[in-house]
């Protein structure tokens, strides 16, 4: 992305409506989360359990994946392996073609956004309809998600009313949320009943049983996984949990962290095919797309613990000002800043690890205890390595050299007295500081001068 995060953020920050929307939405959800997390006496133990299970899965990923594959196959599902986005997309296209299907219904899935599945299907002449309310809004308007959980957080209901009036509404609409939801419901109901193939992501895959677990709020996911004759679920290989009982931990952690609810309205569990009930053909696509590379990094791999709750976005002082689009990535916010550079390569997203003031609020709320600040520092070191030599690098090296000698440091303090007023006039860090902030003049005496003279 040209200009990277700083430039994209500047554009987003210029939109006062967006900032107000974000502020309201993130404030509300933060308060809800804090309330429901606060009522659990064993929240810290749950977090530790979640972290432990995820660490174990990553440590024994190969075994759990093969166990999952065997269990899913035994239950009647077909399991596919995809090394990258292209392979995963080709598999889904192939399944649709084999059945002569030209329309599929989809539930909200970051994984399918990550691999640009909709575009790949469109190229193959297959229309994918987003059935999550917010995703539908974005799809109808050619827009893209800006939040993991609330994809249309940057839009308001007047815009949505106008959009629906232009596209799907069969009668005049007000901007009342019930009215808008009803318009979408009427439109989608027909589509659900007609659809022959559903596409989903997955929140969890249970290795022991080969089960796919999907949690959601609207019930559109339940429709997508129940009504069509063919179901395709795409999941990143890190989404496994070892046993069915492990879901107990995550089904407490996830809704409380994401929507601030004790329990989400819909939890769907699918284990293969059941004759006469639900889809009669089930495909599971296990996606790598950079994940094994992340796994190989001892420090960075904790990013794969993520259960996509978005608590870190909602507490992030950066995200709550800039919104998700500034990150230029399917995964925005603090988790995006550590996951995206690792999935696609640090060189393709070098500004993301710096899109944080290292305040640590994200780590504090993460339900699986991902130490995001530590990974940010780790990735910054990689960026520096790749960009060496650079002007900043030379300055930092020089500063390091100055700090390693007392005389040099004292010389620099004296020099600052002359250089400081000048540097403010030149483009560079000081000018960038003084654009919005005053800078006190240098004190008459450094501390050490005062100390020496007393």
């Amino acid at each position: 992305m040209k200009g990277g995060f700083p430039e994209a953020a500047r554009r987003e920050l210029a939109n006062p409506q967006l900032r107000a929307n974000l502020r309201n939405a993130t404030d509300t959800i933060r308060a809800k989360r804090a309330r429901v997390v606060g009522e659990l006496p064993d929240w810290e133990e749950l977090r530790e359990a979640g972290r432990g299970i995820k660490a174990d899965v990553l440590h024994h990923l190969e075994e759990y994946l093969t166990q999952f594959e065997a269990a899913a196959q035994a239950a009647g599902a077909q399991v596919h392996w995809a090394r990258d986005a292209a392979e995963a997309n080709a598999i889904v296209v192939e399944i649709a073609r084999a059945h002569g299907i030209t329309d599929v219904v989809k539930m909200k899935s970051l994984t399918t956004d990550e691999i640009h599945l909709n575009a790949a299907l469109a190229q193959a002449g297959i229309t994918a309809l987003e059935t999550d309310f917010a995703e539908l809004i974005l799809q109808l308007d050619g827009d893209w998600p800006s939040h993991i959980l609330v994809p249309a957080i940057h839009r308001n209901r007047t815009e949505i009313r106008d959009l629906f009036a232009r596209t799907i509404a069969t009668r005049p609409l007000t901007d009342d949320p019930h009215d808008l939801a009803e318009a979408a419901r009427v439109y989608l109901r027909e589509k659900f009943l007609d659809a022959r193939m559903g596409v989903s992501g997955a929140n969890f895959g249970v290795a022991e049983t080969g089960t796919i677990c999907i949690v959601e709020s609207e019930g559109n996911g339940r429709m997508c996984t129940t009504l069509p004759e063919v179901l395709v679920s795409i999941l990143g290989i890190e989404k496994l949990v070892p046993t069915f009982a492990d879901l107990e931990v995550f089904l407490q952690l996830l809704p409380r962290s994401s929507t601030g609810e004790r329990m989400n309205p819909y939890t769907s569990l699918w284990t293969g095919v059941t004759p006469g009930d639900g889809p009669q053909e089930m495909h599971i696509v296990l996606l790598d797309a950079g994940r094994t590379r992340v796994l190989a990094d001892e420090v960075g791999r904790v990013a794969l613990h993520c259960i996509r709750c978005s608590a870190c976005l909602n507490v992030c002082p950066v995200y709550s000002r800039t919104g998700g689009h500034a990150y230029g990535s399917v995964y925005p916010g603090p988790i995006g800043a550590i996951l995206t550079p690792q999935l696609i390569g640090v060189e393709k997203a070098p500004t993301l690890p710096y899109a944080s003031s290292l305040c640590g609020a994200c780590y504090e709320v993460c339900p699986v205890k991902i130490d995001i600040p530590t990974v940010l520092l780790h990735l910054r070191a990689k960026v520096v390595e790749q960009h060496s030599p650079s002007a900043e690098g030379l300055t930092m090296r020089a500063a390091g050299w100055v700090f390693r000698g007392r005389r040099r440091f004292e010389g620099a303090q004296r020099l600052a007295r002359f250089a400081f007023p000048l540097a403010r006039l030149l483009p560079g860090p000081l000018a960038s500081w003084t654009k919005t902030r005053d800078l006190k003049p240098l004190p008459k005496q450094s501390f050490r001068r005062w100390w020496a003279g007393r």
Partner: protein
Amino acid sequence: MKIALFATCVGDTLFPEAARATVTVLERLGHEVVFPEDQTCCGQMHLNSGYRDDARKLARRFLDVFAEYDVVVSPSSSCVGTVRELYPELVGSTHPEVYELSELLVRKLGVTDVGATFPHRVTYHPTCHSLRVTKVGEAPMTLLRHVRGIQLVELPRADECCGFGGTFSVKNADTSSAMLADKCSSIVATGADTCTAVDGSCLMQIGGGLTRAGTSVRTLHLAEILAST
């Protein structure tokens, strides 16, 4: 007790008042303060910006300079956090007893009343690193509550970052400024005449925003309030 003062590179150069006040407070309580003159920087800026090799060298240097002192104090929670919480991973060791001033007073020395008088309306901004890295907890507020004449007012959204973040403040100046603007509004809304904290750099950011916004609210390091009589 003999206590070595780490003034920090920016503290020494840009806001020496905080280090001077630290000396005043500790000496008033009867402690001996020493200033190892070979000290420069803990390496935080390098570490946080991705320059680990330089950070490592500065960390080793810090540990050398302060090796002979049992107790080290600094008026910067952020630098203390770097030394105490991040050095173990960076260089495999740390200084066992390095404290931010309020921690040293309340937790190590058991002092809650330093005999200060400060007849002003004050709001306290808990900086991110004092909250989440150094974890000074209630120590600064405990000390402030014992200051004579002070009127403490609660800061709304206190635990939200001021937008400083070291090089973040210039690399992402626009985002940093947006965060700062909100922080300044919260401070102004308290009606306080003084905003205090335990990190000079955050106060530099907040102070720069407050004066640019044309307010008369001033920023003072906690040590300066504790040194006032």
